[in-house]
């Protein structure tokens, strides 16, 4: 009889301190340098960076770093999922998620190379963390189906839209490599979303209460997006100089 995966994984704690190096973790000097590069550390977010990259290709690098951050988190999430839920889910689900973990590590390599192609490298920009960290999730929500529901819509589903938008922007601005890589990346995410959908169904068949809870977790994410949009609206209204009117027709 083979030993459970959990037992085979080295039992030493694998912990980075801090686990992610966000803008908050930077020294004041580093924060200042970042602010100079981007016009303020509040601009270090994919929504603003995408529009900045439209204007000046230099901003593709921090934009790609923000994606790379999410890929790192993908490895973390799915890798942990494989080990943590092995006893609770069918073995072929474990296999599927392990494959997904492998995909995320390929995406990481892909984006690291892309970052170098854009003249940057890992370390130049900090991490971006969207959504709750694993440690913030209450224990009763650590059910495999609910975890999967969150990540399926927040990380994977969101990646589909984001990658497609970045691909379109890269194509418009002649960044062929960015467009190519994001097209490639998107193909994997399609599989990931489909896998998540499939297993959410299966897990909910065994435990019907999971369906409602999973839906609630997903809707919570949607309302968070709406909230961020609202915050962006008021922030921008307060800080955009009135002489700055955008070029183009707003599409």
């Amino acid at each position: 009889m083979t030993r459970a995966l959990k037992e085979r994984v080295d039992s030493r704690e694998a912990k980075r301190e801090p686990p992610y190096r966000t803008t908050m973790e930077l020294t004041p000097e580093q924060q200042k340098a970042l602010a100079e590069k981007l016009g303020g550390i509040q601009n270090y977010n994919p929504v603003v960076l995408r529009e900045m990259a439209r204007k000046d290709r230099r901003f593709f690098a921090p934009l790609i770093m923000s994606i790379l951050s999410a890929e790192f988190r993908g490895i973390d999430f799915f890798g942990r999922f494989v080990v943590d839920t092995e006893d609770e889910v069918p073995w072929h689900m474990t296999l599927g998620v392990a494959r997904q973990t492998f995909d995320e590590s390929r995406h990481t390599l892909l984006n690291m190379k892309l970052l170098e192609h854009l003249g940057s490298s890992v370390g130049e920009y900090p991490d971006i963390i969207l959504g709750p960290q694993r440690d913030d999730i209450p224990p009763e929500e650590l059910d495999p189906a609910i975890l999967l529901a969150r990540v399926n819509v927040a990380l994977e589903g969101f990646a589909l839209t984001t990658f497609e938008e970045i691909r379109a922007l890269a194509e418009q601005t002649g960044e062929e490599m960015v467009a190519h890589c994001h097209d490639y990346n998107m193909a994997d995410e399609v599989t990931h979303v489909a896998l998540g959908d499939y297993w959410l169904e299966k897990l909910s068949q065994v435990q019907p209460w999971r369906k409602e809870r999973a839906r609630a977790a997903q809707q919570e994410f949607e309302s968070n997006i709406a909230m961020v949009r609202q915050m962006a609206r008021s922030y921008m209204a307060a800080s955009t100089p009135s002489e700055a009117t955008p070029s183009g027709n707003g599409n």
Partner: protein
Amino acid sequence: MAYVIDQSRCINCSWCRRECPTDTIHYFDQEVRKHKIDPQYCIDCDICARVCPMDCISHEPAVVPDAQSLAAGKMRARAWARDRRQLKLGIRAYAESQVLKIARNGS
């Protein structure tokens, strides 16, 4: 007239749902885990069909919403369009002002 999604080809990317001006594309509350258009509030704007990366949304002349729902749909769409355009232009203007600021500071 309304739009329909070919669910066999939908990849659940959610793009149509986030763009639909009348909020009539549903996902979370569906029996089948696929995106679905509720034709009652569909105003035939074609936005979803244009953003769908799978090209799996099409116009279906046979599906007709009732007049009252359609009018409500149009009202939602007007509010959405105003709001969304404002936000889009806002983000773009802000981003441009930041790029200009950085260029001025010579970094």
